């Protein structure tokens, strides 16, 4: 079974010589792994590094329409980078603003899938046009967008985001999150938790649950006593993000291949008639689930 090849090989015939492979072949192999594997492969040897950093490899990891998306940014420095690997890493680490600064686009670093953060201005927030209920504020230190929406007072909380599923990566399971903060004087979020839903009208099943916007890292058994026990199972809790905002999961959606549906993401609390205040909305983020 063991082959003794031509006399060119100096090593023992029992051991395979991957190093004999042309760099192009190694690139072909690496492009079938993953971005993380490709970066790890750089540390194997000089030849592996050259193969693993080649444009052929990283072109495969980038979404096929990335150039068109980047073109929608008014300040796209990304395309001026010299290598596809650098473009990939830049789009993963530094989201870019597109569509008149109404959306933020970035890649999921480990998979190369497309992710978006829809700005508050891109969302449909009921009553946000009325200054006694909501106001638009500028938070240059904290927000990546020109404006965020601050809730002054409503009893009907209704936030909706829509986007075309063709913007998402195919055959991928996505999750949507509300990205927000609560001011110190916030009130009204500890009674009836809002209902959230994610889905499409064409696609059929819509994922629905309730969320608890209040204090993060609250253990379920320490939850506010007022929330009825039967809602605890379906209620998710916020977590702290690296960019300083909180996020709460609103639901999941599996994006098929080749379909162009309208994805609707909604948060609604209109039953309790309770007045709420102090919610600052950065936007709604859509990114792939892990695993």
């Amino acid at each position, binding site marked *: *079974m*063991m*082959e003794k*090849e*031509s006399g060119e090989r100096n*090593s023992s*015939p029992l*051991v*395979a*010589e*991957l*190093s*004999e*492979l*042309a760099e*192009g*072949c190694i690139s*072909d*192999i*690496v492009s*079938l*792994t*993953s*971005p*993380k*594997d490709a*970066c*790890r*492969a*750089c*540390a*194997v*040897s*000089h030849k*592996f*590094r050259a193969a693993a950093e080649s444009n052929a490899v990283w072109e495969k990891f980038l979404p096929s329409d990335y150039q068109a998306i980047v073109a929608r940014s008014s300040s796209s420095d990304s395309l001026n980078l010299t290598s596809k690997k650098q473009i990939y890493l830049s789009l993963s680490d530094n989201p870019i603003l597109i569509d008149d600064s109404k959306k933020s686009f970035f890649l999921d*670093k480990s998979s190369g899938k497309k992710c978006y953060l829809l700005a508050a201005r891109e969302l449909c927030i009921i009553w946000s046009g009325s200054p006694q209920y909501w106001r638009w504020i500028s938070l240059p230190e904290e927000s990546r967008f020109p404006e965020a929406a601050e809730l002054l007072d409503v009893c009907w909380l209704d936030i909706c985001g829509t986007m075309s599923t063709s913007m998402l990566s195919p055959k991928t399971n996505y999750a949507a999150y509300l990205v927000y903060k609560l001011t110190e004087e916030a009130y009204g979020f500890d009674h009836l938790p809002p209902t959230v839903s994610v889905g499409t009208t064409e696609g059929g099943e819509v994922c629905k649950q309730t969320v608890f916007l209040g204090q993060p890292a609250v253990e379920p058994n320490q939850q506010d006593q007022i929330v009825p026990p039967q809602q605890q199972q379906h209620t998710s809790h916020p977590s702290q993000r690296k960019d300083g905002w909180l996020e709460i999961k609103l639901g999941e959606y599996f994006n098929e291949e080749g379909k162009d549906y309208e994805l609707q993401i909604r948060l609604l609390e209109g039953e309790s008639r309770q007045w709420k205040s102090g919610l600052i909305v950065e936007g709604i983020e859509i990114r792939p689930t892990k695993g």
Partner: protein
Amino acid sequence: MSSVKKVTLKSSDGEIFEVEETVAMESQTIKGLIEDDCADNAIPLPNVTGHILSLVIQYCKEHTSSSDSNSSKSNEKLKAWDTQFINVDLNVLFDLIMAANYLNVKGLLDLTCQTVADMIKEKTPEQIRAMFNIVNDFTPEEEEEVRRENAWAFEISLKNNNVVDTFEVEESMAKELQTIKNMIEDNYTDSVIPLHNVTSDILELVIEDCKKHVEAAESESEPSYSLASKLIDDPLKA
């Protein structure tokens, strides 16, 4: 006489193969030669030995007949055949890659490359070198630089109580903890390491402490052992 057109292929070690033209044309390289009328005599293939050439021909035969309208080979059966076919030792696998590349047989190149790609996935550089007998031709400084440039790829996830909190830590830091170091060195290929006996708070403290150790080691000062590092020995020693 057979009405099927045949071509003659000659391997690097002189073996002669007579192959149907349609089968031989699975190779874009050979197809080009045939179309340019260069295939009247035996086509010499100096880069491919007889053994490997016979395997390539086998592959081409199988994949030509399946596109035949008379053939009842389903996709599933073909995949099963491929899996069986590719079950060869590494030397043969690499020779097949090189032959598929040289002869430009796309299906075979995809199949062989995917097989090797699956072997590389999730492996550390050391494991890849060991598996394929690659010499590490980096100097220690060069290797350090490459690892630093690609630091995110070397992070290991530590998960507590099998549940929610995952901490991304640099491999060098995680190795400060003996238990984790052993797991990594035992080729624990899953990049998520579950730590059942440790809560988030403790794990956070421990990680902070490891960070200090690594930073202290880098600045060549004497590392000071804090209370948290004493906790390393207790909850984490299996």
